[in-house]
C-alpha cells in the first residue's frame, strides 16, 4: 500500500528540501521503494540537493501536461537503486500545475512505489496546496523560532481543511519534525524548547534534527545527509524518524555531536 507523504512548513528556509532528501534516502536505505517529487515549480532545488541536477531532461510539468511519460521524468538515484526523483520545472510558473494532473501522476506512482514524498514549496499558495492535496500523511518541518512555529500552525490548519482526505471527512496524519535544534541553547532558555513547540502546535513529534555542519556539507556535495555521513547526529536523527514513519516505536532522543573541548569553547563564544 503506497503512502503519499507531504513535507511542508509554510515558512521557507527551514529545511523542507533537505529533509525530503534525507527522509527519502533513509526510507530507501531501509529497503523501501521511494520517489521524491519536487513541487517547487520555478525554483526547483531537490535535484540539486540530491546531486541529480545534470540529469534532468523531463519534469513534473511535462508529465502533468502530457508532454512526457512518467517513466521519462523519473530519475534514478546513482547510489540507491530504489530511490527515484521527479524534478520540478525551472522555467514554468506554478500555474502550470493542475489539480487533476497532480492526482493522475500520484495515482500512477502509487502502483509503482511504497512511498511518494512531495517536497512542498514555501508559502500557502497553489504549489503548496497541490503538494499536500493528495497526501495521506504530512511532515511539518519547524525551526525553534517564532515565525516558523506560527507558519506551521497555519499549515496544520490547511492540512485539516484543504486536502482531499480532509474533504472526505478523513484526517491527514501529521508529524512534526523539528530541525536546526540546539539542545544547549534551549536548555539555557535562549531557544524555544521541544516541549514549548509541542505544547503550542499540539502535533505528534516525528524527530528532532540537531543543528549540524553535516547538513550543509551534504547539500554542498549533492548527497542526502543520511547517505553522506551515515553516523552523524542529523543522519541518526533522520533514520530514527524514518523508523517511526514505518511504525516502529523508537525512543525520542536528541542526537548530539561528539565535540572536543576547544570546539565547544569556540562555539559558545560565537553564539
Amino acid at each position, binding site marked *: 500500500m503506497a503512502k503519499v507523504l507531504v513535507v511542508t512548513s509554510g515558512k521557507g528556509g527551514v529545511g523542507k528540501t533537505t529533509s525530503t532528501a534525507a527522509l527519502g534516502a533513509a526510507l530507501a536505505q531501509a529497503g523501501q521503494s521511494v520517489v521524491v517529487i519536487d513541487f517547487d515549480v520555478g525554483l526547483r532545488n531537490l535535484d540539486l540537493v540530491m546531486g541529480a541536477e545534470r540529469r534532468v531532461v523531463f519534469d513534473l510539468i511535462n508529465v502533468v501536461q502530457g508532454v512526457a511519460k512518467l517513466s521519462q521524468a523519473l530519475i534514478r538515484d546513482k547510489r540507491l537503486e530504489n530511490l527515484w526523483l521527479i524534478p520540478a520545472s525551472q522555467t514554468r510558473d506554478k500555474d502550470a500545475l493542475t489539480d487533476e494532473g497532480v492526482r493522475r501522476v500520484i495515482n500512477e506512482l502509487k502502483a509503482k512505489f511504497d512511498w511518494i514524498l512531495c517536497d512542498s514549496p514555501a508559502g500557502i499558495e497553489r504549489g503548496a496546496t497541490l503538494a499536500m492535496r493528495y497526501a495521506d500523511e504530512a511532515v511539518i518541518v519547524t525551526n525553534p523560532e517564532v515565525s516558523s512555529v*506560527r507558519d506551521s500552525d497555519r499549515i496544520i490548519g490547511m492540512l485539516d481543511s484543504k486536502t482531499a482526505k480532509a474533504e472526505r471527512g478523513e484526517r491527514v496524519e501529521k508529524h512534526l519534525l523539528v530541525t536546526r535544534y540546539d539542545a544547549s541553547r534551549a536548555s539555557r532558555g535562549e531557544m524555544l524548547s521541544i516541549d*514549548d513547540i509541542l505544547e503550542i502546535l499540539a502535533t505528534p513529534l516525528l524527530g528532532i534534527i540537531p543543528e549540524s555542519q553535516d547538513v550543509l556539507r551534504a547539500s554542498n556535495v549533492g548527497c542526502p545527509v543520511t547517505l553522506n555521513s551515515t553516523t552523524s547526529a542529523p543522519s541518526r536523527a533522520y533514520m530514527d524518524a524514518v523508523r517511526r514513519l514505518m511504525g516502529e516505536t523508537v525512543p525520542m532522543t536528541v542526537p548530539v555531536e561528539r565535540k572536543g573541548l576547544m570546539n565547544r569553547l569556540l562555539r559558545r563564544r560565537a553564539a
Partner: protein
Amino acid sequence: MMNLLRLIGGRSGSAPVARERLQILLAHERGVGGSGAPELLELLRSEILAVVSKHVDLDPEKVVVKMDRGKFVSMLEVDIEVPNAAQRSKLMAAT
C-alpha cells in the same frame, strides 16, 4: 546589550517570551484569524447587513466589518454608511 544584561543578571533566556507571544497570537489566529477569519467576518457582515437592512436602506458595499487583534482584547469594528434621502432614492431606483 542583551548579552551584557545576561552577564549581569544571570541567565534569563528569551525563549519564555517567544512562547508567550506565540500562544497569545495563535489563540487569536485560530479563533478569528487564519483560515477561519474570512468566513467569520463575512458571516458577521452579511447578518449585520440583513438586520440593519430591515429598517434602513443600505448600500451593501458600504458595510465594513473589521477585526483588529490586540494583545489583551480584540476590536470588532463595524462601519455602516447610511445614505441620506437623495442617495437613498437613487439607490432604490438602481435596485
